[in-house]
C-alpha cells in the first residue's frame, strides 16, 4: 500500500463500498425475511464495521460517521439488547441508502477531480474530497446513478464468491459490444468465404478441414463474445425485493418475497430494458394485487401474502414470471371500464378482456401504479418488453392471484436463422423454433380434419404454404421442402420454395410507427444491402391456424381420433408447468394444469386424468397430501401419480413413495427424455 496516493485509496474504497453496500442490502432483507440468526447478524455487523474502517482510512468522514451509527444499531441486536423489528430493518436500510448517497457524493468528488490537473491537489488527503463533494450536490442525481449502474449489476454475482474478486475486471460495456459485433461480422464474412470457395473454386467447404476448423472457432468466438454480456437475473432481484419491501411497509401489507431461478442468465441489455418493467410489475402486484392482512384473513387466506419472481430459461428464451396470491383482476370491472372507453366487449373471452389492461387508456386508469410516482401503465411495460423482442402474458383468477409473465430472448444481438425462399422472397426463421426441415415426399402427405397434414416422425402435423400464410403472391411449388416449426405448445409445418441455408442474423426492430405484426420478429440488412425479414414462428403458427380455422375446413387440432391419454400437471410454478405441458403435448398427450393440490382435486373430480404429475412444495395442499388424497379417493385411487420435485433427498423420495406415488423424479435431473420415459412407463404406452 505504500505507494498508493490517497486519491487511489479513495477510488479503491468507492469500488469496495459498491460491493459491500449491495451485499448489505441483501443481508438486511434476508434478516427481515428469515428473522435472522447469529451468523447473519454477525455478517451484517462485519460488513458495516469493515465499511466504517475503510471509509475512515479513505478519508470519508461522513460515510464513516453514518456507518458508525449503523454499527451501534446492529451491535444492540447482536448483543441481545434490541430485537429485529421492521423498524430496525427500516432504519438499517435507510442508513444503507444514506451510506450509498454519501459514497456517491464522495465519488462525484472523485469524478470531478478526475482531470490531469487534479492529481497533485488530491494528495492533500482526507479533506481534499470534501470541497469537491459539497460543491456539486446536483451531480448526485445525474452522475450518481449512472456511475453506479455498471458495477452494481456486477456486485451480487461477485459477492456470491464472498469477497474473492481476484480474476474479475471491470470492462466498459462498449468494448464488449464492439467485441460481439465484430464476432458477428467475422461470422458473416466467414460464410461469404464459404460461398466463394464453392462458386469460384468448386470446393465444398464442408469437406475442407481447414475451413471446418475455422467454422468451429468462429462459432465459439461468437458464443463466448455473447456470453461476456450475459448476467444473471439475480442482479436485479435485490432491487425488486427492496422496492417490494418498502412499498409493503408503507401500505401496511405483510408480504413474503420469493425469488427462484435467479441464476438464470440473459443479455445485460435485455435485462436492463426489463428492469424498470419488472419493478413496475412488482409494485403493481403490491399496490393492486395484494390485500391488507385483515382483508386476507376475512376471505380465509393467510395474513402473509407472497409475491414471487421466477426466472427460467426455455430454449433460447427466458421467462420471468411475477406471481402474487392477491385478489386477482376482476374481469367484470375491466369489462365495465372497457365499455366506458367505447370498446365492444360482448364477444370477448376472459383472456381477451385481461389483455385489455395492456391498452394505454385502460391501464392508466385502474392499473397504474401511482406509488411509483411516474404514472407508468401496463401498456408501457408491454411496449418495453416488445422492444426487447419479448412478449407479456397475464393470467389472473379472481380471489386467487395474478401471474404476469415476461418472455424475452436471451440475447437480441444475433439470432441463428434458417433462410428459406417462399413466393419469390427470402425469409429468415429463427433456428431455435425449427424442429426440422424435410424434402417434399408425396408419401408423407395426408389429409386430416379437413386440412392437409404431413407426417413428421409418427405424428401428423398440419401443413400450409408459407407464402400463402403470409399472403405473399406466388404460393410454394407443391414439390418444395417442408419446414416444421414449433412454439411452446404447438407444431405446424410450412411449405417453402427452397431452403437457402443457415445464417446468423443481426436482428433489428421495425419502426414503432408500424402496427404490431405478430408473424414478423424484425428485419436485418443482408451483406448485399437488401432487407431480410425475420419471421416469428409463434405468431406465424397462430396466423396459419386462424387462417385455416377461418376457411371452416378444420376441427380443433386435438379432437380425439384415437383415445389420447390425459395428464394433469400440478405445479405452482408457472414456468415448470408450461415446460411440462409443452413437452407432454408435443408427445401427444392431452394436458390440463392445476396450481396446487386443491385445484388438482377439483379438476379430477370433474374429469379424471390418466396420470397426475405433481410437484411437492405448493401452497394450500402440497404434493404429498395430494397423492394421499388421490389414493384415499374411491374412484381416483388407481390413477398413477408421478412426483417431480426439487427435493432430492432420499427421505423425501421415500416419503413420496410411502404416501402412494408411483414414481419420483427430481427437477435437477429432469429433461424431456427422462420425463417421457417415466410417464410412458407408468401409462404402459411405448416411448
Amino acid at each position, binding site marked *: 500500500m505504500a505507494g498508493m496516493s490517497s486519491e487511489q485509496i479513495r477510488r479503491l474504497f468507492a469500488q469496495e463500498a459498491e460491493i459491500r453496500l449491495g451485499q448489505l442490502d441483501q443481508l438486511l432483507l434476508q434478516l427481515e425475511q428469515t428473522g435472522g440468526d447469529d451468523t447473519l447478524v454477525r455478517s451484517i455487523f462485519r460488513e458495516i464495521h469493515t465499511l466504517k474502517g475503510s471509509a475512515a482510512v479513505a478519508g470519508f468522514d461522513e460515510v464513516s460517521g453514518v456507518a458508525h451509527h449503523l454499527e451501534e444499531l446492529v451491535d444492540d441486536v447482536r448483543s441481545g439488547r434490541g430485537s429485529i423489528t421492521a423498524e430496525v430493518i427500516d432504519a438499517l436500510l435507510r442508513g444503507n441508502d444514506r451510506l450509498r448517497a454519501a459514497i456517491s457524493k464522495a465519488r462525484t468528488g472523485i469524478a470531478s477531480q478526475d482531470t490531469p490537473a487534479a492529481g497533485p491537489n488530491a494528495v492533500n488527503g482526507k479533506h481534499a474530497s470534501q470541497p469537491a463533494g459539497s460543491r456539486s450536490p446536483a451531480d448526485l442525481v445525474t452522475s450518481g446513478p449512472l456511475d453506479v449502474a455498471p458495477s452494481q449489476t456486477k456486485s451480487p454475482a461477485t459477492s456470491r464468491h464472498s469477497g474473492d474478486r481476484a480474476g474479475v475486471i471491470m470492462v466498459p460495456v462498449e468494448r464488449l459490444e464492439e467485441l460481439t459485433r465484430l464476432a458477428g461480422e467475422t461470422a458473416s464474412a466467414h460464410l461469404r468465404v464459404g460461398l466463394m470457395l464453392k462458386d469460384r473454386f468448386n470446393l465444398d467447404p464442408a469437406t475442407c478441414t481447414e475451413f471446418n476448423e475455422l467454422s468451429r472457432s468462429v462459432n465459439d468466438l461468437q458464443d463466448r463474445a455473447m456470453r461476456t454480456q450475459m448476467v444473471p437475473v439475480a442482479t436485479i432481484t435485490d432491487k425488486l425485493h427492496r422496492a417490494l419491501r418498502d412499498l409493503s411497509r408503507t401500505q401496511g401489507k405483510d408480504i413474503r418475497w420469493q425469488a427462484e431461478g435467479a441464476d438464470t442468465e440473459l443479455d445485460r441489455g435485455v435485462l436492463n430494458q426489463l428492469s424498470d418493467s419488472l419493478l413496475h410489475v412488482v409494485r403493481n402486484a403490491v399496490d393492486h394485487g395484494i390485500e391488507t392482512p385483515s382483508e386476507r384473513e376475512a376471505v380465509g387466506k393467510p395474513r402473509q401474502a407472497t409475491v414471487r419472481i421466477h426466472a427460467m430459461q426455455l430454449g433460447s428464451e427466458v421467462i420471468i414470471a411475477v406471481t402474487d396470491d392477491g385478489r386477482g383482476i376482476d374481469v367484470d370491472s375491466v369489462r365495465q371500464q372497457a365499455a366506458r372507453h367505447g370498446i365492444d366487449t360482448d364477444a370477448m373471452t376472459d383472456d381477451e378482456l385481461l389483455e385489455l389492461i395492456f391498452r394505454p387508456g385502460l391501464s392508466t386508469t385502474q392499473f397504474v401504479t401511482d406509488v411509483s410516482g411516474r404514472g407508468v401503465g401496463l401498456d408501457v411495460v408491454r411496449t418495453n418488453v416488445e422492444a426487447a423482442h419479448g412478449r407479456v402474458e397475464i393470467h389472473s383468477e379472481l380471489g386467487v392471484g395474478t401471474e404476469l409473465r415476461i418472455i424475452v430472448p436471451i440475447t437480441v444481438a444475433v439470432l441463428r436463422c434458417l433462410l428459406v425462399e417462399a413466393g419469390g422472397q427470402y425469409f429468415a426463421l429463427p433456428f431455435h423454433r425449427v424442429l426440422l426441415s424435410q424434402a417434399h415426399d408425396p408419401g408423407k402427405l395426408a389429409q386430416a380434419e379437413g386440412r392437409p397434414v404431413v407426417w413428421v416422425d409418427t405424428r401428423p402435423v398440419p401443413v400450409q404454404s408459407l407464402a400463402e400464410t403470409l*399472403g405473399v403472391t406466388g404460393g410454394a411449388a407443391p414439390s418444395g421442402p417442408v419446414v416444421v416449426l414449433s412454439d411452446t405448445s404447438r407444431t405446424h409445418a410450412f411449405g417453402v420454395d427452397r431452403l437457402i441455408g443457415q445464417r446468423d442474423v443481426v436482428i433489428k426492430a*421495425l*419502426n*414503432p410507427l408500424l*402496427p404490431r405484426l*405478430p408473424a*414478423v420478429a424484425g428485419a436485418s440488412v443482408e451483406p448485399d444491402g*437488401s*432487407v431480410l425479414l425475420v*419471421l416469428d414462428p409463434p405468431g406465424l403458427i397462430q396466423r396459419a391456424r386462424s387462417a385455416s380455422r377461418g376457411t371452416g375446413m378444420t376441427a380443433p387440432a386435438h379432437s380425439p381420433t384415437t383415445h389420447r391419454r390425459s395428464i394433469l400437471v400440478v405445479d405452482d410454478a408457472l414456468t415448470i408447468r408450461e415446460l411440462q405441458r409443452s413437452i407432454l403435448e408435443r408427445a401427444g398427450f392431452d394436458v390440463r394444469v392445476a396450481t396446487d393440490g386443491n385445484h388438482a382435486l377439483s379438476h379430477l373430480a370433474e374429469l379424471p386424468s390418466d396420470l397426475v404429475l405433481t410437484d411437492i412444495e405448493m401452497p394450500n395442499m402440497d404434493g404429498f397430501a395430494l397423492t394421499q388424497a388421490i389414493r384415499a379417493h374411491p374412484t381416483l385411487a388407481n390413477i398413477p401419480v408421478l412426483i417431480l420435485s426439487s427435493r432430492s433427498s432420499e427421505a423425501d423420495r421415500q416419503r413420496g413413495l410411502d404416501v402412494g406415488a408411483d414414481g419420483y423424479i427430481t427437477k435437477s435431473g429432469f429433461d424431456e427424455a427422462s420425463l417421457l420415459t417415466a410417464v410412458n412407463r407408468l401409462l404402459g404406452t411405448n416411448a
Partner: protein
Amino acid sequence: MTGMQALLLPVGADLYALPVDWVLEVVAAPTVTPLATAPAAVLGLFNLRGQIVPLLETAALLGIGTVEASAYAVVVNSAHGPVGLAASGFPQQTVLDASIGPSELPGTTGLYQLGQRVAACLDPESLLTHERIAGYLPRSERTAAKAD
C-alpha cells in the same frame, strides 16, 4: 404563413407539399422488400445506410386509395425515426405562398396554388399515426374516400 420552403410530391395525378423541415433526404428507386402481413399502406422496407426504413404509400395514408408507382422515397424525420413517403415522380423544391383555402383530406393543412396547379400541404404529425398506417380510418373518412 408565406414563403414556406416545401417539397412537392407527385402522388398519381395529385400534388402534395411537404414542409422541408420534415425532410431528411430523397431516395430514388429504393430497393424495397415487401413487409409480409403488413397493412396496405406499408409498401415495404428499404435500407438507408444500414438503417431499416419503412416505405409508406402516401395515397393510402390520405385515404384516397393506392397509386402504383413509388419511384421515389421522401424520407421524413418522424418522432419514431425515419419513415419513407412514396412519391410517383421526382419531388421538386418550391416556396409556398399564402394558402388559398382549407383542404379536406385528413393529414393535410390547406391548399396552395402553384401556377395552374393546386397542392395540399401534408402534416406529417397527423399523417404518420398508428391508426392511419394500420388503415383504421373513421367511418366518415372511409365513405368519403369511396366517393372519390
